């Protein structure tokens, strides 16, 4: 056959005219817009999906819809203490954890030690915060996949923790509880009793959650082998928290770069092992959160037994004026490594406060998880990294 006998479509590899359609089948990529108003983007996030049929070629996240100028506000504050309510609003489902990182950073700049009672209460609150955050993550993840009931169970249990927060500092969501050098209030006299009661109540519910959702056949089908993030890719993207541990990397700042009284407490670090599919898939990331809640209950039980006496405001400084210098403090929040880079120029207000937001960094690895997946798996992958847009956009 002569080359000239070939039709143009065959030479360039285009499909021939489709019978009945009268023109060639279009085969170019299509861009699908997901968000910013979409129920499974967990807030105002826009994803630009480049699709080849059902297959995702690329994901381009567009963020900034919830940008509230946290860093600019922090520079404009009259003193260091005033930044704390703004820090609450970063990851608003785990506000206690956000405060903890910031106050540790400023205390390091000031070189002050806080009383042991304060440390223990902070750890208890931070771990409660982890339970609350993971309950939301797990519940909403179930909803993303199509399971409605676990969400209600999770919200029910979350209320019990919020009640403890409310009894302690009056607020249920945004606390302004941890102060530089101490706490705004001491805990109530029946605190230990309430906390023990919660731990006894909550432990069996984790098993119930596993029976309902974690080992549910449909849930495993939707999440195992989906959105796989290999460990070396995760590290190169500086991914942290359950998203990193889901990839099988045993890395937790509470153990690896310890702060507060975590070295004195005994707990395990769960990692993903690819039990239902490949290590680093959505199910692994999900399951790390469930197992972390058990560990948090262990930590809380130990801490509440050892809770020493003391004055929670004994070390609160009258005025905060650190020497010129900078400090980077990273803590393990429910979402991952939350870092505060605080720069002081010797005046009463911070010169610069920069937040290393775990959600921001984890979201930047989303395209690496989704390339080559099906469009429905984007929802599964996005839910499994558990972003809060308040922290992504700051």
């Amino acid at each position, binding site marked *: 056959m002569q080359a000239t006998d070939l039709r143009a479509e065959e030479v360039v590899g285009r499909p021939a005219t489709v019978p009945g359609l009268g023109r060639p089948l279009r085969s170019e990529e299509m861009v699908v817009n997901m968000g910013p108003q979409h129920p499974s983007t967990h807030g105002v996030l826009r994803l630009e999906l480049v699709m080849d049929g059902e297959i995702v070629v690329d994901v381009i996240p567009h*963020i*900034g819809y919830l940008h509230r*100028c946290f860093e600019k506000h922090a520079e404009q504050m009259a003193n260091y203490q005033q930044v704390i309510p703004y820090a609450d609003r970063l990851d608003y489902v785990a506000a206690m954890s956000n405060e903890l990182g910031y106050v540790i950073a400023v205390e390091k700049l000031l070189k002050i030690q806080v009383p042991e009672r304060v440390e223990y209460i902070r750890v208890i609150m931070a771990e409660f915060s982890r339970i609350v955050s993971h309950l939301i993550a797990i519940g909403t993840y179930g909803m993303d996949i199509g399971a409605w009931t676990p969400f209600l169970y999770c919200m029910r249990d979350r209320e019990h923790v919020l009640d403890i927060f409310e009894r302690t500092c009056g607020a249920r969501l945004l606390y302004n509880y941890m102060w530089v050098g101490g706490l705004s209030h001491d805990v109530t006299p029946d605190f230990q009793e309430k906390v023990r009661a919660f731990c006894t109540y909550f432990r069996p519910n984790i098993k119930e959650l596993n029976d309902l959702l974690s080992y549910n056949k449909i849930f495993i089908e939707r999440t195992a082998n989906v959105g796989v993030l290999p460990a070396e890719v995760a590290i190169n993207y500086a991914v942290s928290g359950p998203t990193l541990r889901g990839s099988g990397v045993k890395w937790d700042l509470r153990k690896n770069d310890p702060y507060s009284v975590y070295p004195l407490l005994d707990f395990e670090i769960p990692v993903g092992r690819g039990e239902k599919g490949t290590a680093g898939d959505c199910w692994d990331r999900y399951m790390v959160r469930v197992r972390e809640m058990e560990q948090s209950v262990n930590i809380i039980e130990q801490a509440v037994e050892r809770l020493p006496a003391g004055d929670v405001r004994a070390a609160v400084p009258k005025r905060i004026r650190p020497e010129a210098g*900078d*400090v*980077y403090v990273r803590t393990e929040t429910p979402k991952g490594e939350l*870092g505060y880079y605080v720069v002081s120029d010797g005046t009463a207000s911070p010169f610069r406060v920069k937040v290393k937001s775990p959600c921001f960094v984890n979201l*930047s690895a989303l395209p690496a998880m989704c390339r080559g997946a099906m469009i429905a798996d984007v929802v599964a992958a996005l839910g499994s990294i558990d972003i809060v847009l308040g922290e992504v956009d700051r």
Partner: protein
Amino acid sequence: MIPQEIHDALRTRFGDAILGAKLDGVVDPFITVAPERMGEVALALRDDPAMRFDTLCLLTGMDYTGGKLGVVYHLASMALGHKIVLKVDLAAENAHVQSVESVWKTANWHEREAFDMIGILFDGHPDLRRMLMPDDWEGHPLRKDYKVPEYYNGMKVPY
């Protein structure tokens, strides 16, 4: 490795690309690097078997006022468990620094944010767009001399 050893190793290898260091009397010791050699220094820090800085924790754009900008890199090694801080000093009128996106993928978004907020230009970045502000925003909001615009796209912004 302790910061002093890291500094000595870098100075031996890169000579005058290492402009200085402050290793004592600060909370986090730091090394100052020349902006036009940042890429190769970063690659060496990642790949040298004695250092293995596999994680870029944070990349911060700074405005030190008085026409001085800077970039701060917080590095950590998961494999070896040590940390170091790198700093790059820039002049506001020529704020160019080599991108480290090809070394640590996480730098992609951090560098875009530093460009967006402070106006630092990262040479070699594949996609240097604004990160948090709208694409048509003017100015760099975290500059210390930034004035909040009265109008946005012809609309008066009430405060």
